[in-house]
C-alpha cells in the first residue's frame, strides 16, 4: 500500500514538474546552469572511470577467451560491444545515480527543511517545476553526450593497454572496433541513457522534495534517492533491452 501511495505521489510530482513554466526565459537559463552543474562537472569522473574500464575489459577479454584459433581483433570487437551496450550507459548511469542523485536530493532536501521551497511557493512560484524541470532537461541533454564520450574514452583505454601490453596490434584493435558495427546498438544505448537520466533526476528530486525533518532526514533522503534510482535503472534496463533487443 505504501509503495502505491509513493508511486501516486511521484506521478503527481512529475505532473507538477512538467506544468507550464511561469516564464520560459528563466527556465531556459536554468537549464544551462544545470548542464554545467550536473553534466560538465561529471566529465572528469566519467573520463577516468571509462579509461580504466576500457583497459580492464581488454585485459579480461584476452585472458578469458584468448585462443590461437580466435582472431585477436575479436577482443576489441567484444570490448566495444561491452562498452556500447552496457558499461557506458547502464554502469555509467549507476555511477551518476550516486554522484548526481545524491547531489540533487540533498540540495532539494536542504531547501525543503530550511523553508526555501515554502518561500518559493509563497511567492507564487511552482517550486517543483522551477527546481526540477531544468535539472531533468539538463541531465537528459547531457547524459547521452557523457555516454558517447565514455564509449570513446573507454575505447582509447583499450587501445592503450593493447599496444602497451603487446596484446594485439593497433591495426587489429581498430579493425575489431569497426567490425560488424551496428548503429542500432548506439541508438539503443542512447535511448537507455535518456531514460536513465530522467529516472535519476526525477527520483532523486522526489525524495529531496518530500523530505521532512532536519539534517538527518536529508541524509536519509539522499540515500533512498540513490538506492531507488539504481533499482529503477536496473529494472528499466531490463525492460528496454527486452523491448529493443529481445
Amino acid at each position, binding site marked *: 500500500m505504501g509503495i502505491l501511495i509513493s508511486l501516486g505521489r511521484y506521478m503527481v510530482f512529475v505532473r507538477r514538474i512538467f506544468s507550464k513554466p511561469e516564464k520560459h526565459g528563466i527556465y531556459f537559463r536554468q537549464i544551462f546552469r544545470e548542464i554545467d552543474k550536473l553534466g560538465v562537472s561529471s566529465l572528469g569522473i566519467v573520463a577516468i572511470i571509462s579509461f580504466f574500464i576500457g583497459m580492464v575489459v581488454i585485459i579480461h577479454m584476452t585472458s578469458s577467451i584468448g585462443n590461437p584459433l580466435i582472431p585477436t581483433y575479436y577482443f576489441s570487437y567484444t570490448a566495444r560491444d561491452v562498452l556500447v551496450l552496457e558499461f557506458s550507459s547502464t554502469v555509467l548511469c549507476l555511477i551518476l545515480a550516486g554522484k548526481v542523485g545524491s547531489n540533487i536530493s540533498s540540495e532539494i532536501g536542504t531547501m525543503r527543511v*530550511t*523553508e526555501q521551497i515554502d*518561500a518559493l511557493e*509563497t511567492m507564487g512560484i511552482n517550486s517543483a517545476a522551477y527546481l526540477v524541470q531544468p535539472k531533468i532537461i539538463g541531465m537528459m541533454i547531457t547524459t547521452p553526450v557523457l555516454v558517447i564520450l565514455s564509449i570513446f574514452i573507454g575505447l582509447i583505454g583499450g587501445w592503450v593497454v593493447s599496444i602497451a601490453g603487446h596484446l594485439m596490434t593497433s591495426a587489429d584493435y581498430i579493425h575489431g572496433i569497426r567490425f560488424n558495427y551496428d548503429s542500432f546498438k548506439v541508438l539503443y544505448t542512447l535511448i537507455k541513457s535518456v531514460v536513465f537520466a530522467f529516472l535519476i533526476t526525477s527520483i532523486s528530486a522526489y525524495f529531496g522534495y518530500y523530505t521532512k525533518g532536519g539534517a538527518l532526514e536529508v541524509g536519509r533522503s539522499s540515500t533512498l534517492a540513490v538506492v531507488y534510482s539504481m533499482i529503477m535503472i536496473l529494472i528499466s534496463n531490463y525492460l528496454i533491452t527486452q523491448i529493443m533487443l529481445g
Partner: protein
Amino acid sequence: MIRVDNISKSFDKNNVLLEVSAVFTEAQTNLVIGRSGSGKTVLLKCLIGMFEPDSGEIWYGNDRFTGLDSDQQRIFRQQMGVVFQGGALFDSLTVEQNIRLPMDFFTDWTRDQKLERVNFCLQRVHLPDSNRLLPADLSGGMKKRVAIARAIALNPKYLLCDEPNSGLDPQTAIVINNLIHEITLEFKITTVINTHDMNSVMEIGDSILFLSEGRKCWEGSREEILTSDNKVLNDFVFASELMKKFK
C-alpha cells in the same frame, strides 16, 4: 483585511487548531501570540495555503482563499509577502538575486527598473550596498532584513511573518520590529506576525490574538493586555520576572 472564520486543523488525531476566528486589520500590525505548540505557525501556514484547514474559511478582502485550488492559491500568493523564521533565503543566490527573483517571475520590468526596486528595498531595510553578498555572508539579523526586503519587493497587500525576531539579540529584534511596523504603516499592508516575544507585543502590537492549545483564548490591544484578567493570558504574558515587575 484578512478574516479567519472557525478554522480547525488536526494532524492525525491531534487537534492543533480548534475553531479559531479572527480579523486582521489593514495598515495594522496584527500579532498572534502564544506558547510554543499553541498553533501559531499552523494558523500562519493555513493563511498562506501551506496547510489546508479541515474546516472553516479564510478571506482576503472579498476573496475566499480557502475556495481556491492549489494553482489558484499559488497565483493569489503573489499579493503576499512572507517572512519565514529562518529567513529562507536562497543559498545559491546573492542578496540582489534573492530580492529580484519575484520580479523576474512576475514583472516585465527592465533590468534597470528591477535593480532600482532592489536598491529601494535594500535601502528600506537599512542594508544598502549589500547586493553582491551571499546569504552565508550575512548575520542572523541581516538575513531577516533581506527576507523582509524580498517580501516587500512586489508591493504586497499582505505581509505574514513567522517569528521574525526569534534568535536575535534584543537590539536587532527592536530594529526588525520597527522596520515591519514602519513598512506596514507606510504601504498600508495587512501584517500578521507570529511571535512569543513580549517586547514585540508591547512595541508594535496594534491588535493581538492570543492562542492557547489551538483555541483563541483572548484578543485585544497592547494596552488591554496589561489589564486583562484572563488567567491563561496573564500566565503567558507575565511569565518572566521582568514583566512581573513591569506590571
